[in-house]
């Protein structure tokens, strides 16, 4: 199989995958390196990338981070089940799409206007995009292919993404779990030993004992959160 879309960096001014002739896969099929393949084949290659490349990361987007409709909780739970099975996986969310002022915390979040910053800062070599609106996912995936050597996997609720190395379409909770099963299978085939473990929580969240937290513990964020006069913040979480 010749690879139409390869792991980057492809250069300063990337050519878009559709302009290189890549077309979205029909229902029931997937894209792997720009070619239409079975879902199983794409999932196996994606699983292998997540298991063998450094710092595998899941980038969940707004559609799975917020509980805005009934089927989200189930899908989100499935994503976390998947994350637990990927050795040393991290979760770095894309909580919104605005150009954020003054800058993002590259360890805590990824932003579609410069997704390469988070990838490069954390030396991420394989990543999943899920729950990101298609327009922003396409922009991000293209910029990542342009400037990083990250293997990208798109798990899209709609039609998939030409720019990703592996693109799975019409993804719902059960498809995430199916991918998890395939990943475990590939992991066993590769002889990688791993006990399911949840990824570490967001590094921007304070590690202090909540019971004794004071505004001073918020350091540079102090101005963003102040207790009321005489109030002691104790009921976080």
């Amino acid at each position, binding site marked *: 199989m010749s690879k139409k879309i390869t792991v980057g960096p492809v250069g300063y001014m990337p050519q878009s995958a559709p302009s290189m002739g890549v077309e979205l896969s029909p229902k029931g099929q997937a894209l792997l390196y720009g070619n239409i393949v079975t879902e199983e084949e794409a999932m196996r290659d994606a699983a292998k990338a997540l298991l063998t490349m450094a710092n595998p990361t899941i980038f969940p987007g707004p559609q799975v981070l*917020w509980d805005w409709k009934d089927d989200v909780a189930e899908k989100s739970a499935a994503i*976390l089940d998947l994350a637990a099975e990927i050795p040393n996986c991290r979760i770095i*969310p894309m909580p919104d799409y605005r150009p954020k002022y*003054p800058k993002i915390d590259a360890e805590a979040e990824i932003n579609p206007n410069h997704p390469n910053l988070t990838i490069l800062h954390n030396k991420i070599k394989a990543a999943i995009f899920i729950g990101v609106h298609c327009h922003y996912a396409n922009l991000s995936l293209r910029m990542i292919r342009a400037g990083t050597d990250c293997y990208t996997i798109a798990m899209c609720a709609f039609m998939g993404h030409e720019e990703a190395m592996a693109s799975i379409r019409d993804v719902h909770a059960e498809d995430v779990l199916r991918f998890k099963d395939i990943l475990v299978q590939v992991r066993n085939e590769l002889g990688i030993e791993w006990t399911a473990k949840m990824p570490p929580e967001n590094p921007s*969240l304070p590690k202090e004992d909540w019971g004794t937290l004071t505004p001073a513990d918020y350091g540079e964020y102090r101005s963003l959160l102040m207790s009321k006069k005489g109030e002691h913040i104790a009921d976080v979480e």
Partner: protein
Amino acid sequence: MSLRYMIPVSKFKKYLPKDYVELVDYGPFGKDYSDVGVKNMGTYKELVEEHPMCSGCWMAYYIKIIFASLPNPEDTVTIGTAGCGRLAISQAAVPFIYGNYGDQNAMASGITRAFRLRFPDRHKDVITIAGDGGMMDIGFSMTMHAWFRRERFTTIMLDNEVYGNTGGQESGMSMEGAILKMSPTGKKFGKMPAMQLAITAGCVYVVKMSPTNINKASKAIRRAIFAARTLGPTFIHAYTSCNIEYSIPTNDVFRDAKEMEKGRFAFEEYMTPEAKELFAQIESKNKREVS
């Protein structure tokens, strides 16, 4: 239930960046204005915090007041245009739409009508926030016609009497005689009578003010939003100085705003009898509602 879209999936909460978690736990969404309004600024997670406005910017201060005054931030959309204001507005935790130059009131006409189609039983507050250039020059026709058509949304003009973001050119709201870029020999005509235009065009509630008192500023904003829900267009003309282009030392920005309050931005409030009745109802129902 609209609040759902800002509540994280519980299992994902610990993977969210801190400022988003705080926005939900300590933000104003779904809470009472008396706890999370202008009077309590600094004690809760505000909707607009970090922004790239200039030091001492009176507009940035007023924008913070606007967001702290929203009666229903979880059901509010703001619309703006080119200018300084959008730099801060676009960082707020409220959806913001930016179209083309000066088109904010036309966009708002479209979106408020669409909201009323999709959510006939609910209020979705639409507020256009733009500068004097965006409202009274390039967007003049769209501003005026939205009012003539009685479109039910709130228009807030941030009047700094100059094109601040593009480097200090004369605007229709600059003072007669002002020497600015594009008026090298001084402006040849006076400020456009925005308040009178709004009244003539059919706004049901109109305020002109220099927002030196946050409670008073907030009250006007909330009244404008409440009246726009059912009665018709509302307009606030606020003085938000440009300390850069008018060379106002940072320390004197507040003093300048106070002086304006005694002069051409003396507080004026216009309301139709229907608006007056509405405010009486709202404000008697909850004494704390509008202070």
